[in-house]
């Protein structure tokens, strides 16, 4: 099985994000692999360990996306592709899907794994758009992937009404939920060996995609997240506090 994992190198949202003049202030920010994509990488490595699979990651964006590609190597991924283009710093989901599809066709992958959404934008569009463009079966939000045979997978997904168990034939696209696995921490030896692997660099133009024209969506303005309001603190006797808080939950918050 040949598995392609699409990973995004995103702003570390645990840091204080600042907005200046309607744009993200990029000063002093740090970047990490999007959390759900780590689940996708872990799943690919687990499939490689339990079955015979060749694993490749792709990341689209600026030069420093190589950090996330090397992190995937350190977790056990075999090879990496970096699609670098100055116009692709913040591409829209459709552009990303087109590029991944170009690489998929070029290299003949059986399974494309992605996180259910990117940690920075929370769009969750790329996997669905990719499946549509590529005309492939698609399961979103997978919580379990089992191999039936070389051409078939059994995939469990979580829905509000319960779990769905789906059988699908390869090639296919699957986006994963964070409950699918616990991404491993790379060991230092893994990290040091990862630097010896080469990353294949590809140009979006060679895949027939004009990165300057491609985006159909333009972000007009960023607004900072609303600061959390100050909480209330209650002191005194436990019973009195309990009565007071329950009263507030019923009468003011109206949640009970």
């Amino acid at each position, binding site marked *: 099985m040949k598995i392609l994992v699409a990973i995004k190198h995103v702003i570390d949202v645990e*840091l*204080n994000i600042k907005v200046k003049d309607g744009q993200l202030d990029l*000063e*002093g*920010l*740090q970047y*990490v692999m999007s959390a759900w994509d780590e689940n996708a990488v872990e799943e690919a490595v687990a499939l490689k360990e339990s079955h015979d699979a060749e694993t490749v990651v792709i990341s689209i964006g600026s030069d420093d996306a*190589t*950090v996330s590609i*090397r*992190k995937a190597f*350190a977790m056990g991924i075999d090879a990496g592709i970096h699609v670098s283009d100055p116009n692709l710093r913040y591409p829209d989901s459709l552009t990303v899907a087109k590029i991944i599809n170009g690489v998929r066709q070029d290299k003949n992958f059986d399974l494309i794994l992605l996180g259910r959404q990117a940690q920075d934008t929370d769009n969750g569009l790329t996997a669905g758009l990719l499946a549509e463009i590529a005309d492939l079966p698609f399961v979103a939000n997978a919580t379990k992937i089992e191999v039936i045979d070389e051409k078939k997978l059994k995939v469990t997904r979580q829905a509000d009404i319960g779990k769905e168990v789906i059988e699908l034939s390869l090639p296919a696209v699957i986006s994963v939920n964070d409950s699918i696995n616990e991404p491993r*921490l*790379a*060991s*230092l*030896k*893994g*990290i*040091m060996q*990862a*630097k010896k692997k080469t990353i294949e660099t590809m140009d979006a133009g060679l895949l027939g995609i004009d990165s300057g024209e491609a985006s159909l969506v333009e972000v007009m303005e960023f607004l900072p997240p609303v600061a*959390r309001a*100050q909480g209330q603190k209650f002191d005194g006797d436990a019973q009195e506090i309990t009565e007071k808080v329950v009263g507030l939950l019923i009468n003011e918050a109206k949640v009970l």
Partner: protein
Amino acid sequence: MEDFLHLNDLLTDEEKIIRETLRKFVDEEVTPLMPSAFERGEFPKKLIMRMAELDLFGMTLPAQYGGAEAGYVSYGLACQELERGDSGLRSFVSVQSSLCMFPIFAFGSEEQKQKYLKPMSEGRIIGCFGLTEPDSGSDPSSMRTRAKKAKGGWLLNGSKLWITNAPIADLAIVWAMTEEGIRGFLIEKATEGFFRNPIEGKLSLRASSTGELVMEDCFISDDQLLPGTDKGLSAALSCLTQARYGIAWGAMGAARDCYERALSYLMERTQFGRPLASFQLIQKDLSEMFNEILKAQMLNYRIGRLKEEKKDNYVMASLAKMNGCKEALKIARMARNLLGANGISLDYHIIRHMANLESVFTYEGTDNIHHLTIGRYLTGLSAFT
């Protein structure tokens, strides 16, 4: 903490990944354990095998001896992230790596390297380093532990105090005075005449195991002498130079944790109708903390690169250790004060860092001794020998 000076631009991809990986390890697997480990006065032993899986022991050593062949900036970043969790955890890694694996690698025979280094990198053998004695601290050449030549080996008598990991160690590197000067011996825990006693009642580094080593007519065979330690005290001191470099980074990890926790607390807590962070006196403290962290990180980073280029010296390690520990302790005390009453609660982590840093400030060369080391370098005049 934001990357104000774009330090990231100076790091390689693998250094960034090591830092990020260890940050996650500490946030998810270390910090939640530490308040109660500190309160109970126990080292969380389950972290030993986990740290071994991550290849944190002897990480700068060659692969043939179980090392990860990481650079010194990587080692520094690892120490910084680990000490964000707890100084005791970083101390464990410093002792295992810089004080035990390093001397076996640098001064041991090939047989000793083969016997000990790989199991130590895998966390199967825990080491401790015995130099300090009850009456010999800053002046190690005054040590009373003696090794007398006997048939086929040596007879050791004496005791070592304040030894990190002593109660849980499988192997001790003990420095003893011989007729030829101070030499290092490898003592396995089951050796006859070798005793280890825990030190109770510490109010600092409580989540680190500290103890005493006692040698009473303890026979050590010739093949357990570190053959490369025939240059007097310099071998023992070269181990400390290694460790001091990691401590300089580590102290800034604890300082960063205090600063970050204080900043977020001050942004959220309001008094007199506005956030505490909006008051001038508080902003003065925050800007001083921020400034000292940035300065220390740049100093540590530069010395790390010089170590990688083999252009460093022991005075640099003294300078970085002195600066890092002094400023980290000041930052922890400021943060403790800024959190008011909450600053003394284990739930807010700062008091734990502050108490730990009192030890880190003192061990591996006191602040005074590092000043004198630098003073001797500047003047050529020794104020302490």
